Structures are given as structure tokens and as C-alpha cells.
């Protein structure tokens, strides 16, 4: 129970599209408090296009991540298109050529994706962005593995940390992007990107846990 056969795991990306579509209105509502109110609409548009491109089965996970990344880059623009687009392209390219996904490879893929996000967006933890979800989630995953947890248990640690990270954005003042214009007024609500990142990481973790062999 410590790895996932990648050739059969493309369905994970379809599950990501489902969770984004199911939370379309909620994500837009969060975004509307301090942003344009279009986060759910844009994310749903991009993930739906990717799901349609993948078909029902989803194929292998590396190719499915690459399709998702390409679709987000080509389909939604704004800031989320390039950020999530490059993130998923990096997951795809890191997994490409591997038969199975284990904890070490998963960590490597997320770190590669995180490096792209930081390179593109110049945000730091504490700026009230999706990094406030992703960075502690990835840290928790790595710490669990270092502490001897197997892949499945480390994924559980990641799910919990993603939620804590998302909730941490409620008390933060936005430092980057359009919400930054609100200064102190951005405090008290979640960051929409941190919320969508939490949905994605938790769904991805649960999907991988169900496919562990």
C-alpha cells in the first residue's frame, strides 16, 4: 500500500474537475468579497474544458496532468491560468516516464510545481495566496514521510495541513494581486486561490489514497 500505478490513475484529474465544478459558486462568492468574483467561474471553465479533453477514463495520470495544465494555460488567462497551468504541467512532466507514483516522486512533483509558482508569481507564504495552502501542505507531507509514515498516511497529513493553511488566509492581509489594493479591508475573508488549492490538494490526496496498491 505505498504506490499508485500511474497508467490507471488519470481519473484523479476528472475528480479535480468535479470538485471545482461542485464548488463553482462558493469559490466565486469568496472571491467576490475581496476580488472580482469570477474565480469559481474561471476555474470551472478551465477544469471543465480539461475534463472534456480527457474523456471518461482519463488515461494515465502524467498525461492527464499535462492536458490539464495545457488547458488552463490556454483557456483561462488572468493570474490563475498561468499559475495552476504551470503547476499541473510540472506535475505531468515530473511523473512522465514513471510507471508508479510513490511518496518520493509525489514530493518531487509538488516541489517542482511549487518552484514554478514562486518563479511566476513572486508571492511568499503570508501574502494571502494559494501558497498559504500549498506550502504547509507540502511541508506536512514531507515531514510525515521523514517521520516514517507511508504514502497513504503522508497524504492524510497533507489533507489536514491544506485545510489549516487555507483557513490561515482568513486573518491575513493581501500583499499581492488585485486584493492587495484593499489593504486591511482584505482581512477577515478567505483567499479564493487558497480555497481552490485546498480543494484540489485534498481531492488529489483522496484520489491517490483510493488507488494505492
Amino acid at each position, binding site marked *: 500500500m505505498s504506490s499508485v500505478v500511474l497508467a490507471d490513475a488519470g481519473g484523479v484529474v476528472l475528480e479535480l474537475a468535479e470538485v471545482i465544478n461542485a464548488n463553482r459558486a462558493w469559490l466565486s462568492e469568496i472571491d467576490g468579497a475581496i476580488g472580482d468574483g469570477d474565480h469559481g467561474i474561471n476555474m470551472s471553465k478551465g477544469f471543465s474544458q480539461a475534463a472534456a479533453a480527457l474523456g471518461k477514463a482519463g488515461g494515465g495520470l502524467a498525461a492527464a496532468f499535462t492536458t490539464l495544465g495545457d488547458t488552463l494555460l490556454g483557456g483561462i488567462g488572468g493570474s490563475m491560468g498561468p499559475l495552476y497551468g504551470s503547476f499541473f504541467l510540472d506535475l505531468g512532466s515530473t511523473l512522465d516516464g514513471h510507471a508508479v507514483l510513490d511518496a518520493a516522486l509525489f514530493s518531487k512533483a509538488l516541489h517542482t510545481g511549487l518552484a514554478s509558482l514562486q518563479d511566476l*508569481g513572486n508571492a511568499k507564504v503570508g501574502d494571502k495566496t494559494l501558497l498559504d495552502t500549498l506550502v504547509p501542505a507540502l511541508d506536512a507531507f514531507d515531514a510525515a514521510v521523514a517521520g516514517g509514515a507511508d504514502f497513504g498516511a503522508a497524504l492524510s497529513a497533507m489533507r489536514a495541513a491544506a485545510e489549516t493553511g487555507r483557513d490561515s488566509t482568513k486573518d491575513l492581509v493581501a500583499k499581492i494581486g488585485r486584493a492587495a*489594493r484593499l489593504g486591511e479591508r482584505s482581512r477577515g475573508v478567505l483567499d479564493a486561490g487558497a480555497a481552490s488549492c485546498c480543494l484540489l490538494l485534498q481531492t488529489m490526496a483522496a484520489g491517490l489514497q483510493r488507488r494505492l496498491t
Partner: protein
Amino acid sequence: MNRIINNPDEVVEDALRGYLRAHPDILAATDNPRVLRERNAPRAGKVGVVTGGGSGHEPAFLGYIGENLIDAVAIGEIFSSPTAKSFHDAFVAADGGRGVACLYGNYAGDNMNVKMAIRQAAAHGLTVKTVVANDDVPSAPKDQREKRRGVAGEILMWKVGGAKATEGADLDGVIATAQKAIDNTRSIGIGLSACTIPAAGKPNFSIADGMMEVGIGHHGEPGIEVGPIRPARELADLMLDTVLPDLPFAPGDNVAVLVSGLGATPVMELYILYDHIAEVLSSHDISIKHHFVGNYFTSLEMMGVTLTLMKLDDELDRLLAAPAHSIGMTRIAR
């Protein structure tokens, strides 16, 4: 929200069809529905000039596609950056074999999408270099100029860059001159009312009746001061008091002046403001060599105005004067 639209989610698509029907003598479609090109682009042997940005600023950005101006434009959703793919496809549409100059404004989304697009272009051997406009003085202090947003000064940068490319300059020459153009350009905006993205249905910021926001951004980014509206003469003083010392502009300088409405301002009021701006510049012994007054760079139906000044040298003067034809700006030889 009283608007002349169909489906609020499809205003960009609907408007683009109208632009293409109205201006087939200037614009042409490409395989990417969010990229328009000048009808004769790409022009072999000329550096391609590209820009792009969110919709809602019309006639920017697509209105500056034209002969001796912009070759291709990437078009985003309202107030949202175009995709990396659209920027990339605009580069390809403008590429006449001597590289592409992407002249755009300093916004987080645009910076990211342009960066990704340049990587895609490099992968098939297309060289793209950028100039990032940051002419909006109130958006950050002078020692953090790299954080300032790009606003209506972008238009003067496009005019200069487009004319330089037409003169036959190579890519580095076009980039250097466009950079010089924006380095000598300063802007400030004042907002008197908010604006509404049709798909959102309500404004996401507000300016109370009788109040104004000095230094407001093109998407309602907060300014430096909110206060009661003052007479046009005092607005001109206030705007110039911010802009003139920043470069600084000095007695004896020649300048270009661009006064743009933000969408809902009566044009006659732009001229009321211009009268005072010209008077104050004259009193400072600053000579206006080029002037533009009208709706050049808007923010949907925001009430308000931007003032842009560019300090001229002989080259910038010549390139601004060069003939050009586009929806937003036409210059004729005289």
C-alpha cells in the same frame, strides 16, 4: 446595471465581432478568437509589435492595431489578463522574421502570461523582448517605480515603438526606444464613479456621490486620497503637482499631453480640464508639441480622467508625429 449587451458572459466575443465587421480596412481575425492582427501583418522584415490586456479599456488595446502602430493584440476577459496562449499566438501573428517587441502594462496576470508565452515562443525559435509600462505615478513611490502600474502612457509607448519598427529598426532598437518612451512618461488618474463588470452585475468598489478618488487605477485600484470633487482648474493643478516633479519635467521641456476619459466623462469636460493643463504648462515654460484629448484608454463606464505627459527628445517627437492609422488614433503627415 443599464447596459447594451446580450449575454453578460459573452460581451467580449460579441464586441469583437462588431469590431471586425466595422473595421475590415484595419483589423483581421486569426485562428485564435482572442487574437486580432493588423490586416497586413505580419510584415516581412519588420519587427513585430504586440500588446495585450484585459477587455473593458476600449479603444485600448485592439484599437491601437494599425499601420505603423500595433501588429497584433491578445485580448482577455474584462479586466483579466489574456491567456499565455493568446499572447503567444499574437507573437506569431506579428512575426515578420525579425523578432517581436511585446509592449504591455505592469499587472501581475499580464506579467505571468507574457512570461509563459515568451517561453513557448522561444521553444520554436521566435525571439520576443518586452517593455513593461509603469507610468502611473500614484501607484507606488518613485523609489519603487518597478511596482507602478501601466496606464494611458502605454498608448504613447505603442505609438513610438510602432513608428520605430516601421522605420526599420531591429528588435533591440525598438525595445530601447519604447523603453525610453515609457521612462519619460508619467500619468495620474482621478475617478469620480465606479464601474461594473457586466458578468458581475454590480460594482466591486464605490465612490460616493460628490467625492473623487485621486490616483485611482484602471480597474478601481485604490488611489492616494479620497475627497470632495473640486473645480476642474484645481484638478488640473492637483494632477500636475503630482506628475511634474516625479520625472521631473522642467522649464524649456517639450512634451506630449494625453488627456483620456475613463468611459463616462463628457468629452467637453476633458477639454475644460485640458484648457487648464495647457495654461499651467505654459506658465511653467513647458511647450506642448503633441496633444491628445478624448477617450483613449477607458475603464468601462467609470467617470473620471487620466493625464499623461511625455517628455520629448527629437526622436520621440519624430516618432509621435509619424503617420499612423488605427481605430483609437490616426496621425496624418502635415
